[in-house]
Structures are given as structure tokens and as C-alpha cells.
């Protein structure tokens, strides 16, 4: 007998968003995932954030799978995560890792919660009676909690636990618990698991105001808070119901200051790095403060460099300053002084006027960053590896998510603090790397769920079977009369049977139901139970086993009504609400709905398992190879006659020791050799049609002047970019004025000799970060300029090198290069957008005049060379490629991803992905990370697993459709199109998210979300309003 291969199993340690994303991506392609988190909850930092840049809303649910979404359940991610293939272990620490690549034994310690959360109803009687009060971690100590508490107030189901540090063991909670789930003598549980790969996603320790010396100049009042605590203060579910008040006395905070770089960019405290995300965080908070607190709220940010380097960050910054009036002051302040009236004084220097000012604030928010070394050292010890020279986990030089130890990957803030987009992107990329790694091992996938064929029974006259769970006897006594309820429902037209059971969630309960349903003649099923979030999946499986079509099963939260009745303090005699009636009307609504509901069936999409990659730069080649390695046929289309793109042909060395040109050569060699990759050089995209699994793209071979067609299941756009052009600063009028790329080339070829040069000046942000220009940061120019300056310094130690900048964008650990440059004697001088340096040609040579900001003095430089950092431009062909694929391109010429935070490499149209500079200017490592992520998203659909549409998608009633095409215009996902040849509106079932916009818009109900017809909705409303007696005489 052949031995069964083990199921590919992955440990994802850390359930913040990057870990969750990695877990979902792996689970979706059929691997078993263990998702652990050391804290009692999942969600990480994001559980605390109500509002995220740039929409200032939440959008966490958008990281869930888009196609066949019912199989992962689509719901609010802030409440929880449920996935068949993911075992979630909160409050579990990783204790040890032993073994080799592909065969790791991990020891986990599952800490005792003292509450059986599977059975807890989450209503919190225990919390009410607990006598202990202590600072609440979730609200950063701004509020109090009990010893038994909900770690995240909005999670569902409530994952309560008891904090034994503060618990007095008085036992009151045990007495009142209606479900008997509290065990004060529970113990931690040690678990040992075998896994094939590990993803580290634990995040890093964050700077806080308690543990660090340099915070003590600030922590003088409760009104000095960290940026995360401020997030809780303004949260609707936070400390003051979303109004902005200072913690000390709850009075409105009208003047708020943010202080940047708290704990970061500090050589003295051995933290010479930037924490990357704090500038945007502060801008967002300042804008939110204005929005929530009104215009009279004054917001001031004290900063050194406003690091708005990411996509759309600069525009947000402009809006914050221009539209919202957020004030920015470039000054690092020593500390804050607490005044007797509780206001907080800060003294700062205004360089422009060369004067000091003292300002009083109601609240001071410290933009606290990361303290990574401790976390990295701990993980390195656990993995038996050494930290690298940066004191961080040793990673592959090109792959940020790949550890040097095989089979171990990392994502999220372990790479340095990441914003949501990077965290999500790295989670996908890590999943991609794991998938590539596991594809080389002898492991199997979890079996795919069988989708049953439609049966004739579904089309019979509707007959509903009703199964109700009484939950706990203890509760139903005082609230819902189940006998009357059952009798009432049984009387209804179309109800075949009513079963009232107890403990449906137990194994016996399930068996009982199965036995009952096996005998049933009904073809529709309504189950009234508890915790539908948690049990929906298992109850649906039960129904499936009993032969019910998935779309004809409804599960409703009956327990909330029972519980509400139980806890309603009003005595029956003084007019307590009739909870039996409430339950009856609710259930009746479901019954009426079920009666009218058609049997819906999912469609198994036919998937062409080939991918198209547009662009043969490093990102494109990396993506192609990532897919090909996993057996996917790839067509790589490159418009020029050579591979490598901009970086792979122009950049020999980067400051962090990478060699893009030789790397590109290496990749090109692999691409050419790979049996799964077909290269199409000199080819342009003409047009594309089709949808996920079945695209057909017309391609023009420019050299042969002929067109041909490629069919593919998905595509990755990796069209790249190039150095920007300029005519500013006398560029083109002197051979002493060059761009950074020209300098780099000239230095490499020796055409430019800086050996004798006395002075070299570089100007940053040429044509960038301004209206009517590149209204974005190109992200790589500051580091590029520093690299060039250091190269000059090496050839000529005596030359004076000046870099005129607006904000030095050496975010994250690249801050070290800024420091390195200063140490090499390179002089950095800032200028402001409204007072740019002026360049004149005197006898053909550039003379630069500018206002020196520190001394506020006019200065002049006469350099041998003036070097301009002109930023990164999008490829001009992006617009045509965008048009061909029907993909949006922003005003800067970069592709617009589906969601800037939660779906960074996807387009709204399913099956199309973006990677690299086509998305926005980024570093080589980031481009590779995106390529890996895009490749993985592609692979998830092309891996050979069945891809189903959801039951619930929108459809068109052709007979009553007038083809006015309003629905096509309105569909935010581009799932609807008008087919001229057929004269019909077509719905792309994979792309449709059933948002319902078309159904709302369509005047005539020709657009309908299946299973949500007007008739059903009206029937539910009628049932909700029904007043007939529940049951006159119970049987």
C-alpha cells in the first residue's frame, strides 16, 4: 500500500495583517496553516485602527479572497478570521524550532485563557461581576478593564480571557457563568507540531513611553500619548466615543501637536534608523483630528523630514497641508513641559525668522516607532541563526521575505515597520516563497471541497425543514417559549417539519440532526443556532451531508434573541418584550425567504493554466520564473529586443551592494532556458478580452510587423519605468549639468572624471513632489544621489559635495546611508518648494544660489558639476497597455491597483496583477517583493485547483433589460460589459463581488443579485411585520 504523502503544513507565527495575509494565501491553495499569535487576539496593530490612509476608513475585509469568496467566508476582518484550512492559535508562543529545511518540529505554548471560548456566549456576565479593575491594553491604558476581559472589544465571537496577574480568584465569575465555561485552574498547554515551512510575522517591538530613557522628557502627563494611543482616543469604539479629548481630564483637545521620530533616528540611543510609517501616520491622525474635531482644532507636526515616499503619500500630504491646514514645523524639540493648567508647552526654533516660540498644546502625540533588534535577536536564537551586520535576521540579499535558513520566511514589520500595503504585499510574497519551496517537497494538498451537483429535489415545491437549537436550558426558560414557537412555525404554509434540539454544536447534537434530516422530505433547511460566524461552516457541511443544496440552507442567530431575553432585566409582568414573538417573526422571515429562494449553483471556471507577463524587466522576469518554477506556462512579452528593463540594463550597483545588471543577466539566462517560459521580444500588447481563466490577448510583433494571439488564464503587468526628464535648472544648456543616471553612467565608463573636481552639487526632487510635475516621491532618488555622492567621494576625497534636498527620503534602515553620507563629509542642505535653488549659467558654467535654511542666508555655489535628481517616470506605454486590458492608469501614468492598502498587487478585475515600477516608483527589492506577490496571486488561480464563482453574483434578466448600460458604467469592479455582437449585458462571474450597485441602479430589476430578489426581500419585510398569534394552542 502506497504511503500517503503528508499534507503540506506551514506555521505562520504572528497574526497581524501580514501573517493573516500569508496564512490566507497559503490556505487558499490548499496547504494546512497553523496561525499563532503571542497575544490573546489576532489582528495585530490593525485591530486598533479604525481609520487608515488614504481613505480614512477601514477596509481590512478586502484582503479576503475575491473569487468564490463564500468558501473563505466574507465578513468583517476586525471581528475575526475563519478559514477551513487555517488553525488559529491565539495566545500561543513559539518556544522552539528544531529540524532542517522542509522538516521542522516546533514547540508551541498555548497559554491558558481560563475560559473555554468555544462554549462562551460572550455576553460578559463574568465581566460585570468581576471586582478587579486594571489598565486596558487595547486602549493603551487610557481606560480600565476587569481581570476577565475582552482583549478586542469588537471581535466576534468574543474571545474572553482572565488575566491571572490581577485576578483575585474570588470566583464570582464562575458563579454567574450561565454556560459553565470558566476554569480558574486551567493550565498552559504545550503543543508540538511538525511543519514543512515557517513564516515569521510577529512584527517587532514598538517604542513605548515607559521603557525608554529618551521618552522621559516627554512622559510628563497623561496627555502625552503615543500615536497608537491617539488612534484609540479618536476611535469610535475607543476611549471617548470618537471625540477628541485629553486623557487627563476628558476636556476637549483643540490644540494638538505631533512629535516625529520619537525613539527613531537617534544615534545616541543606538537607534539610527527611521521607522518609515510615522510621517504618514501623523499626517493621517492630524487630518482625522481636524475632521472629527472640527476646523477649530489646530494640528501641528514637528518633524525633520516629511517622509511621504509611498504611492499617493505626497498628494495626501498636500491635502493635509493645503486643504486641512495641518501645520508643519521643521524642528526637533527636546521635550515638553507640563503647565499647571495641564497644558503642555513646547519651545521651538523657527529657522525662517531665526526666532524661538513657545506654544501650548492640549495634547502631544509622539510618533513612536520600532525597536527591532531585541525581537530579531530572539527569533535568530530560536532559529539557531546569527543576526546579520545590521543586527537583523539574515535575509536573502534580493528577497526581503526569504531568510537564509531554507524553508523559513518573514513578512510584515520584521522587515522594518511597514505600512498596510507593504505588510499585505509581503504576506503574499512570503506565501509565494513558501509555495515555491513546498512545490519542491514531497507533500500533498488538502482535498478540495466537493461541490454537489444540483438535484431534482431542489426544483420541487419549496418545503422547509426548521431545526432550532435551544442552546442552554438555563436560558430559554425565561425568554423564548420554544414549544409555542415550534407549533407556530409548523403551521406555516411551506414548512414541512420543525425540530427543537439542544446543543446543536455538540457532536451528539450534530448526529441527531443528521439522523432527522436523513428522513426529511424537505428541500430547504433553516437552522436557528448561535454564533453563526463560528458555526456557519460546520452547520453548512452538516446540511450538505444531509443532501441540501448550499443555497437553500439558512442559518440564523437565534441565540442572540434568546440571550437578549435572558438578560433583559425587565420583569414579564411590567411589559417585558415578547421574545417568542421576536424569534417567530425572525424565523418566519427566513422561511418566507427560503420558500422564494431559487437553488443557486456555483460555476466551475474553466481555467487556462498559462500566464502572461507584460514586461521583461527584473520584476517581470522574477514573476515569470516564480510561476514557471511551479509549473505554470508563462508567456513573457517584452517590447524591446532585450531583457532587463531599466534597472537591469542601467544600474550596475546599488548602495546596498546589489548588482542589478548582473542579476538581470542571471535572470535572463534562466528565463531563456526555462521550459515553461516562452519569450516574445519586440512585442506590444494590442488588445485583450475575456476574464479570469480565459483571456485572449492580441499582440503585435513590431519587428515582424505581424499580430498574433495568446490565450492565458491571468496576466501580470510589469511594465516598469525610467529616469524622469527635465528642462529645469538649465539642464541641456551645459555639459556640466547632468542627471543622476548620466553621472552614474559617466562615472562607470570613465567619461566623467571627478578626480579634479572641487565642488559638486546635487539637486533633489527636480520636477518631483510638486503640482504640475511628478506629484509624487520617486522613492529611489535620495538613496541614488547618496550612492553617487559616495562614489565621487571615493574617487575624490577632497571634493566638496552638496546635496540640496527637500526631505531626505532614507526611510527604514536606509537611514544608515544618510548617516554614512554625512560621515563622508557630504553636506546636505534643505530647500523649500517655494524657494527653489536658482541656477544661472556664467560663461557656460552653472552658478547656484539658494537660501541656506539653518543660517537663513543667501549662499552661492559654483560647482564643477551640477547633478539633477529627476525622479522616475512611468512608461509612456502604460496608457496603451492599460487601455488594452481595461485597467486604470493614474494621472502620473502608473497603474491603479484595486486597493492601495489591502490589495496592492491586484486590479479590481480579477486575474490581472501589477508588479514593480508599473505600480509606482520603488526600490529593486520592493519590486522583487511585488513580483513575487503578483506571481503568487496569479498562481493561486492557475495552480490547477478548481476555481468556482460564488453562489451569489449578479445576473441580467435579458427579457426586461433595455441595454441602457447604466449598470456597466456603475459597476465598480468592471464586472459588467455590453457585448455589441450579442446585444447583451455580460457579467463576469469571477469579478463580480455582488456589491449590488447594479441592482440598485437598474430601474427595472433587470440587474439582480441572485438570491436577493425584490420578492424575497418584500416577503421578509412582511414576515417581520406579521402580527398573527404565534400559536394559539401549542401541540
Amino acid at each position: 500500500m502506497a504511503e500517503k504523502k503528508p499534507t503540506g503544513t506551514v506555521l505562520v507565527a504572528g497574526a497581524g495583517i501580514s501573517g493573516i495575509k500569508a496564512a490566507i494565501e497559503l490556505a487558499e491553495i490548499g496547504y494546512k496553516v497553523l496561525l499563532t499569535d503571542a497575544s490573546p487576539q489576532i489582528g495585530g496593530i490593525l485591530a486598533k485602527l479604525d481609520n487608515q490612509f488614504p481613505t480614512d476608513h477601514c477596509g481590512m475585509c478586502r484582503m479576503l479572497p475575491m473569487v468564490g469568496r463564500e468558501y473563505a467566508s466574507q465578513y468583517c476582518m476586525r471581528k475575526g478570521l475563519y478559514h477551513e484550512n487555517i488553525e488559529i492559535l491565539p495566545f500561543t508562543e513559539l518556544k522552539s524550532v528544531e529540524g532542517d529545511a522542509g522538516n521542522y518540529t516546533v514547540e508551541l505554548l498555548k497559554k491558558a485563557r481560563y475560559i473555554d471560548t468555544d462554549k462562551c456566549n460572550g455576553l460578559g456576565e463574568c465581566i460585570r461581576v468581576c471586582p478587579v479593575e486594571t489598565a486596558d491594553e487595547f486602549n493603551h491604558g487610557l481606560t480600565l478593564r476587569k481581570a476577565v476581559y475582552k482583549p478586542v472589544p469588537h471581535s466576534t465571537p468574543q474571545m474572553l480571557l482572565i488575566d491571572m496577574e490581577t485576578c483575585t480568584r474570588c470566583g464570582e465569575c464562575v458563579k454567574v457563568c450561565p454556560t459553565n465555561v470558566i476554569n480558574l485552574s486551567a493550565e498552559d498547554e504545550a503543543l508540538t507540531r511538525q511543519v514543512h515551512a515557517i513564516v515569521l510575522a510577529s512584527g517587532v517591538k514598538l517604542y513605548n513611553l515607559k521603557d525608554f530613557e529618551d521618552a522621559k522628557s516627554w512622559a510628563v502627563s497623561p496627555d502625552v500619548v503615543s500615536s497608537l494611543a491617539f488612534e484609540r482616543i479618536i476611535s469610535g469604539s475607543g476611549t471617548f466615543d470618537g471625540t477628541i479629548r485629553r486623557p487627563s481630564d476628558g476636556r476637549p483637545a483643540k490644540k494638538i501637536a505631533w512629535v516625529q521620530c520619537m525613539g527613531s533616528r537617534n544615534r545616541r540611543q543606538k537607534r539610527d534608523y527611521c521607522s518609515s510609517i510615522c510621517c504618514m501616520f501623523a499626517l493621517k491622525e492630524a487630518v482625522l483630528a481636524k475632521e472629527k474635531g472640527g476646523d477649530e482644532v489646530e494640528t501641528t507636526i514637528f518633524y525633520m523630514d516629511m517622509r511621504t515616499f509611498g504611492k499617493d503619500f505626497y498628494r495626501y500630504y498636500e491635502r493635509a497641508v493645503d486643504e486641512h491646514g495641518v501645520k508643519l514645523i521643521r524642528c526637533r524639540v527636546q521635550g515638553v513641559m507640563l503647565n499647571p493648567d495641564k497644558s503642555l508647552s513646547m519651545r521651538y526654533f523657527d529657522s525662517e525668522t531665526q526666532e524661538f516660540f513657545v506654544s501650548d498644546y492640549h495634547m502631544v502625540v509622539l510618533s513612536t516607532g520600532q525597536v527591532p533588534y531585541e525581537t530579531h535577536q530572539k527569533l535568530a536564537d530560536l532559529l539557531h541563526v546569527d543576526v546579520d551586520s545590521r543586527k537583523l535576521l539574515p535575509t536573502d540579499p534580493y528577497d526581503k521575505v526569504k531568510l537564509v535558513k531554507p524553508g523559513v520566511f518573514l513578512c510584515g514589520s520584521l522587515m522594518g515597520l511597514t505600512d498596510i500595503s507593504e505588510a499585505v504585499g509581503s504576506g503574499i510574497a512570503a506565501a509565494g516563497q513558501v509555495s515555491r519551496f513546498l512545490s519542491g517537497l514531497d507533500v500533498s494538498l488538502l482535498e478540495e471541497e466537493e461541490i454537489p451537483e444540483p438535484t431534482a429535489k431542489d426544483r420541487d415545491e419549496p418545503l422547509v425543514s426548521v431545526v432550532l437549537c435551544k442552546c442552554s436550558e438555563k436560558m430559554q426558560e425565561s425568554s423564548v417559549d420554544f414549544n409555542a414557537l415550534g407549533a407556530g412555525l409548523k403551521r406555516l404554509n411551506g414548512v414541512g417539519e420543525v425540530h427543537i434540539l439542544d446543543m446543536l454544536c455538540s457532536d451528539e447534537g450534530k448526529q441527531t440532526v443528521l439522523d432527522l434530516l436523513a428522513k426529511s422530505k424537505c428541500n430547504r433547511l433553516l437552522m436557528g443556532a448561535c454564533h453563526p460566524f463560528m458555526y456557519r461552516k460546520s452547520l453548512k457541511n452538516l446540511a450538505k451531508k444531509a443532501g441540501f443544496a448550499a443555497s437553500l440552507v439558512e442559518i440564523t442567530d437565534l441565540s442572540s434573541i434568546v440571550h437578549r431575553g435572558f438578560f433583559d432585566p425587565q420583569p414579564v409582568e411590567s411589559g417585558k418584550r415578547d421574545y417568542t414573538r421576536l424569534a417567530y417573526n425572525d424565523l418566519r422571515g427566513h422561511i418566507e425567504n427560503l420558500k422564494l429562494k431559487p437553488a443557486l449553483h456555483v460555476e466551475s471556471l474553466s481555467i487556462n493554466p498559462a500566464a502572461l507577463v507584460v514586461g521583461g524587466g527584473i520584476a517581470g522576469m522574477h514573476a515569470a520564473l516564480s510561476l514557471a518554477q511551479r509549473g505554470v506556462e508563462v508567456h513573457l512579452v517584452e517590447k524591446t529586443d532585450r531583457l532587463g528593463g531599466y534597472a537591469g540594463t542601467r544600474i550596475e550597483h546599488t548602495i546596498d551592494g546589489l548588482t542589478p545588471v548582473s542579476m538581470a543577466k542571471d535572470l535572463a539566462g534562466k528565463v531563456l532556458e526555462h521550459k515553461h517560459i516562452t519569450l516574445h521580444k519586440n512585442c506590444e500588447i494590442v488588445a485583450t478580452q475575456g476574464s479570469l481563466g480565459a483571456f485572449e490577448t492580441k499582440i503585435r510583433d513590431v519587428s515582424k510587423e505581424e499580430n498574433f494571439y495568446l490565450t492565458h488564464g491571468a496576466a501580470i503587468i510589469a511594465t516598469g519605468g525610467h529616469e524622469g526628464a527635465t528642462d529645469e535648472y538649465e539642464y541641456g544648456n551645459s555639459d556640466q549639468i547632468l542627471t543622476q543616471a548620466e553621472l552614474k553612467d559617466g562615472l562607470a565608463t570613465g567619461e566623467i572624471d571627478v578626480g579634479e573636481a572641487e565642488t559638486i552639487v546635487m539637486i533633489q526632487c527636480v520636477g518631483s513632489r510638486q503640482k504640475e510635475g511628478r506629484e509624487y516621491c520617486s522613492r529611489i532618488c535620495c538613496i541614488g544621489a547618496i550612492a553617487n555622492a559616495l562614489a565621487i567621494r571615493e574617487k575624490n576625497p577632497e571634493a566638496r559635495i552638496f546635496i540640496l534636498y527637500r526631505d531626505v527620503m532614507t526611510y527604514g534602515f536606509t537611514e544608515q546611508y544618510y548617516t554614512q553620507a554625512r560621515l563622508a563629509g557630504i553636506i546636505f542642505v534643505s530647500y523649500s518648494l517655494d524657494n527653489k535653488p536658482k541656477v544661472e549659467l556664467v560663461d557656460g558654467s552653472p552658478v547656484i544660489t539658494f537660501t541656506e535654511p539653518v543660517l537663513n542666508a543667501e549662499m552661492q555655489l559654483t560647482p564643477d558639476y551640477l547633478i539633477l535628481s529627476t525622479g522616475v517616470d512611468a512608461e509612456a506605454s502604460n496608457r496603451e497597455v492599460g487601455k488594452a486590458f481595461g485597467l486604470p492608469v493614474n494621472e502620473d501614468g502608473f497603474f491603479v491597483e484595486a486597493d492601495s492598502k489591502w490589495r496592492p498587487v491586484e486590479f479590481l478585475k480579477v486575474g490581472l496583477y501589477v508588479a514593480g515600477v508599473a505600480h509606482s516608483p520603488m526600490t529593486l527589492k520592493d519590486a522583487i517583493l511585488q513580483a513575487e506577490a503578483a506571481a503568487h496571486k496569479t498562481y493561486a488561480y492557475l495552480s490547477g485547483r478548481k476555481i468556482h464563482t460564488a453562489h451569489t453574483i449578479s445576473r441580467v434578466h435579458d427579457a426586461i433589460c433595455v441595454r441602457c448600460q447604466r449598470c456597466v458604467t456603475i459597476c465598480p469592479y468592471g464586472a459588467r460589459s455590453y457585448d455589441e455582437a450579442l446585444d447583451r449585458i455580460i457579467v463576469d462571474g469571477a469579478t463580480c463581488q455582488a456589491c449590488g450597485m447594479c441592482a440598485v441602479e437598474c430601474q427595472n430589476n433587470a440587474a439582480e443579485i441572485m438570491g436577493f430578489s425584490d420578492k424575497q426581500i418584500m416577503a421578509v419585510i412582511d414576515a417581520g411585520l406579521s402580527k398573527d398569534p404565534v400559536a394559539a394552542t401549542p401541540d
Partner: protein
Amino acid sequence: MELCLFLGCNTPAIRPDVERAIRATMPELGVDLADAEGYVCCPAFGSFPSTDDDSYLASSGWNLSIAEAKGLDIMVQCGSCYSSLRMGRDHLAHDEEKLARVNELIELTGRKLECKTKVRHVSEILYNEVGPEKIAKTIKKNLNGLHGVIQYPCHTLFPSEIVGFEESPREPKALRILTEAMGATVDHYSRELQCCGGAGGFSKSSPAEATEFTKTKLDAIIEETKADFIVVSCITCLMYLDNIQKKLNEAEGTDKYHIPVFDYNQLLALCMGFDPKQVASICTVPRNKVIDRITAG
């Protein structure tokens, strides 16, 4: 223990009652003091440290070697002397070349410097070596019912890695705990960590601004606390905060500023029952009220 007392210039010359207080109290607490015969200027930051390394470090070396010859650590009360000596020692201890040069220069004294001698501040000795408990036990009278505020000497705080002894230079507590050990209530105020304004060239080059600067501190004390006195442990702080109050009153035509200023050891001496005339007699702002309370108590 025995320590070599480095007095500097202001204390013995202008406020010898502080010297008296130190000499009176420390032995009572088990700290015997030896004199540094032939010591010279620390040197003050405005002197040799502002001209060249040689003259600065040679003077430091001169002083350090006196104590080193006795095999004793140095104890200082004056903040400037403490900081200058400690920084000088730090330079020498970490730079063999400089140490060699200094030894070359002080060779004529016949002394040799190995930088074994440590430089310690009197408040650090009281806090770490003696301890608040011992002080509480030793005193005969106390400050019960009196409110004090602290003026921490900047020179004992910054830069912490060279001069510091507090757990946190941003949240110093030694003087508070020592003062509380004598029964006083210590009030916090917003400008607690602000410099007295008396050291260096500031008060000479910008007298009006320097006075205004110190005024903000005194105003904060008056408005925010119930201070009966200010506790210092630096001769500059003592003299400056004491003398400026009279100036302020004269300039503003008020008597608003009348908070007596004491060196910590003076309060200690009073609580130990020493004669106020000897240990706390020289001042601008009258100290009678506080002294009377202590002696009466």
C-alpha cells in the same frame, strides 16, 4: 569611608558656611574628609578648557593626582568643579596620549596620574553611600510639615554617561529622596529641570535675559508649589538663586521673591542640630523662618 574634599573657589571664599556644613555633616554619616592641599582651579570651563587641551587637562591632572597620591576618591559639591574634573578625568582615562602628556606636564610635582581616583558628587555620596535611611536615622530634628523644591545641578546630570549617577538624567530623584528623608514634602514644578541660569557667560553677556530666564523658574515655584525653601547641591545654583531674588524684588518693586535657598548639606547640618550661625548664616534671602521651624521642631 574617606574622601578627598575638593572645595573649588566659591564655597571656601564666598559661602564658607556651606563648607562648614559639609565638614560638619559628612563625618557624622561615616564619610571622613581629607583636604586637597595645594589644589588649583578645577579648571572652570571658561578658563583653560576654553583655550587648549594641555592647560585644561594639566590642571585637571594636577588636582586628580593630589587625591590619587592619597589613594582617595574626590568629593565635590560645586557643579562646575565636579563636571570639569569628571570630564577632564574622562578625557585622560580614555586617551593614553593625553594622559602621557599630562604626566609629562605634572612630572615636576613628583606625582603621577593613573586615573584611579574617581570624582564623585556630594549628593551622589549621600544617596548611594550613605543612603536616605541612614540620614533619617541620624538626624535629630526634621523638616516635617515643610515643603521644599529641588534645583538639580545640571552638571551632575548631563551628559549622563560622563557625569551622571541618577537612574535617569531626565527624571533625577536623588535630591528629592534625600530631602524627603529629612521629613520634608517635596513639590514638583514644571520647570524643575531648568538650569538656574547662573553658570557660564550667559548671565554676564545677557544679564536681562538671564534674569528673565531665572524669573520664569522662580515664578513657577511660587505659582505651582507651597515651597518653603529651595534645595540645591551646587554652589553656583545656591548663590545665583539666592542673590537674584533680591535683584528681582528691587527691579519689580515687590517682595514676591523670598524663597530661602539651602545647600542640601546645610539642611542636613541644621537637622543634625549644628549651630545655624555656623552652617547656614550667609544668605541674601533670609532663612530665619525655616531655620526657626527646624530648631523649634
